[in-house]
Every structure is written in structure tokens, then in C-alpha cells.
């Protein structure tokens, strides 16, 4: 992992302040979406070798949920934006 994550609210901060949640590509299905949709939501994950979008929480900072795009091979971070700004929910 890169040492710093550039939080859109707090600026570049040590990555130890953040907590990773994982794959940001999954969205919570409707309650009646059916077993397959819920299985996919709870258990299946994108796990790419290379660019990956993830939810990170700035636990020891602004406590905002972020979407961080980074590389799982080089650990370089491309972008970090507030999750609410993208309109996505988990």
C-alpha cells in the first residue's frame, strides 16, 4: 500500500488512519431482489489484479466513506473521492 491516502476532506493522511471495506462495485439489492442477487452482494467480489475501486473509511479523521481507486499490484493510488459524491451506496 501507498503510505498516504489523499482524503478529499483532510488532505494526504497516513493510510493507518483509514479502514478498508473492500470492493466498491457492489450495490445493496432491493429487499425482494431474490436469493441470487443477495448471494452475489454478500459473497461475490471483484478481485482484480491491477486497478480496483474500494470503499475506505477515514476512521481516524473525518470519518467519511471514500471510494479509493488504486492498483493491487503496484499499490499506487489513483484517486480518492467521497462516496456520497458519486451517488453510490453500499
Amino acid at each position, binding site marked *: 500500500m501507498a503510505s498516504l491516502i489523499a482524503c478529499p476532506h483532510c488532505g494526504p493522511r497516513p493510510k493507518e488512519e483509514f479502514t*478498508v471495506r473492500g470492493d466498491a462495485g457492489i450495490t445493496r439489492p432491493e429487499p425482494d431482489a431474490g436469493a441470487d442477487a443477495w448471494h452475489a452482494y454478500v459473497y461475490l*467480489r471483484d478481485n482484480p*489484479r491491477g486497478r480496483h475501486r474500494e470503499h475506505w473509511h477515514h476512521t481516524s479523521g473525518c470519518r467519511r466513506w471514500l471510494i479509493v481507486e488504486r492498483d493491487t499490484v503496484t499499490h499506487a493510488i489513483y484517486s480518492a473521492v467521497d462516496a456520497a459524491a458519486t451517488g453510490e451506496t453500499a
Partner: protein
Amino acid sequence: MMAICFHGDPIMRYSAFSVFLNALRGNRTWQPAWRSPVPKTHYDVIIIGGGGHGLATAYYLAKEFGITNVAVLEKGYVGSGNVGRNTTIIRSNYLLEGNNPFYELSMKLWEGLEQDFNFNAMVSQRGVLNLYHSDAQRDAYTRRGNAMRLHGVDADLLDRNTVRQMLPFLDFDNARFPIQGALMQKRGGTVRHDAVAWGYARGADMRGVDIIQNCEVTGIRRENGRISGVETSQGFIGCGKLAMAAAGNSTTVADMVDMKLPIESHVLQAFVSEGLKPFIDNVVTFGAGHFYVSQSDKGGLVFGGDIDGYNSYAQRGNLATVEHVAEAGVAMIPALSRVRVLRSWGGIMDMSMDGSPIIDRTPIDNLYLNAGWCYGGFKATPASGFCYAHLIAKNEPHETGRAFRLDRFARGRMIDEKGVGAQPNLH
């Protein structure tokens, strides 16, 4: 004399006598332990991944099930992945129904392995101790020990004084986490990990399996809903059955057939210290944090802790985790504070959604999956290979590997040893 020291083909059977005989010949007549064959155009079975599990699978396919027209494709060299990157611990101290008989099968195979594949893997049943630090943890370990005994596995609950006699250097009076005792499995221990890869590779090769190194699978060819072969860095190779054993790269391979897995890849670090005189006789794990340590025959302390926690395909980790592991180690053994770490390294773990592995068929008829070993794959190597070979040969799961189904998540049959739910970086 030749009949004694040769095994019927040019590869010499290893024994004290062959060491002696080769010494007399000036060690000029040793043969390579396995061949470096050019891939054939077609195999009955191709195994993707020449790690411990892939090689063990090939070995048991040939030895137990008589299937020898097999290729193991390894993108690097044998021993370059997790089989050469772990902390070499073996144990079968599991609680849950699906896990316990499987890991005990593995332990029994470890106990006979060196005779079985005629290779010195330095299997050392030095005992594994899990320390407990509270009444609640003692109760949990009592429960686990009882579950083990009900499955016929050895388990002993040790009190504080017994542990103190065995391991006087532990921080028994730690203010926050005093050591109250330990759950011990005497038959647990360590095995020389490289030798496991080499022994299985040699044993498989001896029985006709082609081990093809530096051969990366880049695509999987499908015809009429079945797998017909794999595209590789050494060209197309056809197969009757395709078996994945790609560990941390399982997703990368599954993506080639558009199969989404309940797996994330994470990096786990391990460490070895400078050589010290013998002082840790067993494998010891900290109950108040994640830390496990043993001492190698060369004197280095081999230890590790938690995964770094974020998805990674880089075989290297982060300093924050190094610090965390060191803190846990010093909390358990204060004398470690002056030990210098010689080197550290990382391996990529296929972390599953319940912390347990998958050995199963897939929606594609002749494609098989072996994945999700999290960071407990090394101890499982023999049983994983055995059960996977059974599945490939007979198209039916082996009875002790039956629980490790791919569809268990959809069916609510999780095997969650730690009870933390569908969050891979917590297992």
C-alpha cells in the same frame, strides 16, 4: 547393487546407502530430481499451479488413482509461490465439523509423507501451543480441545505452571494479558516447506507427470460448453480435465472463464530472525494478538501475524503490519525485543468469505476448483492434494473434503471457524 539404489528409472531412490554410494563416486552421478519436459499437445489432466497443492494433486492422481498423463503448469518455478513463503506450521486443531476430519487426514498424511514420497521433508512434530489469557478463552479452547478429541485428534489443555515449565521465557504476568495456560496439540509441528514442494514434484515426475515451469496460463479455451485446453506462454495445450490450484491468483484464472469467486486476494507477511541458539522448542501462538513463532533448525525464529488487510497481488507488505507483528511478538516473549529480523517477505492469500477452502466441481463440466485456502493452506497440502485428486479422478468429492463446496455460501452452509462473517480480511 544397482537394483537397490535405482527405482527402475534414471532417478535415484534416496537412502543413506545412495548418499554413501554417490559420495564414493564423487557426487558426479546424482540426477536432477525432476525432468524439464517440453509440453505435449494434450493431457488427460492439466493442473494450473505448481505450488504445494497442485504438485500434491498431481502426485496423488498418479500414485493413488493411476492417472499419469498429467501436466502441472507453473508460471514461475517450483517453490516460488506460497509453498515457499509460509511459516511451515502443521496442525489439525480445528473446531468445526467440515474442517476437523479434513485437517486430521492431512496430519496423518504428513506423518507418513517422507516414507511415502522418499524425500526428507524434516517433518517435526514438536507440538503446537495456543496460549489463553482469560477464563473465556480457556473455555473456548476447552471446547475446541473436546471437539478435537471427539474426532480422535490429540489435544491437551495445559495449565499455567505446565506451560511455564515448558516455555519459561513467556510474559506470564503481562498486566493486560496474563498467560493462564495453553491448548496443545502434541502432533502438530513444522515441516520444511521447500522440501514438500520438491518431494511432491519429484514423486509426481517419477510417475510420469510433466512439471512445466515458466509456463503461465494466459487463457482458457472452451468448446461446446467444455474446456478444451489452455493458452499458455508456451503455446496451446489441450486437456480432458482442467484443475485450478492457483492460490492467490485463483480469481485471475477464474476470470478467464467468467466465473466470479467468493474470494479476495490479500498479502500476508512472514519473517525470519538471525540465527539464535535453541530456545523455542515448539510452535507457540499468542492468544491475545495474532502472532505465531517457531525456531528453525538453522536457529532462525520463523514468525508471522495477520494479513495486511487490503486487496493485493504484490508479494510484499507494509511496515505498519511489520510493527504490529513485532509488538505482538514482544508482548508474548519480551526477550524478542533484542532479536534482529533477518528478512521478511509476502505471499498472496486467496481469502474466502468464511475462512475455509473450496474443493469442488464448477458450473463447467470438466473444470475443477481448489481455492480459498486463506493463510492456512500449507498444513492442508497433503489432504488438499489427496481430496482434489479424488475429485478429479472420480468426479466425486472425497468424504473428508465434502463440506468444501463452492455453493455453500448460497446454501447457507458456511464453515466459519472464527465466526466473523463474510469479510475476508477478518478471517
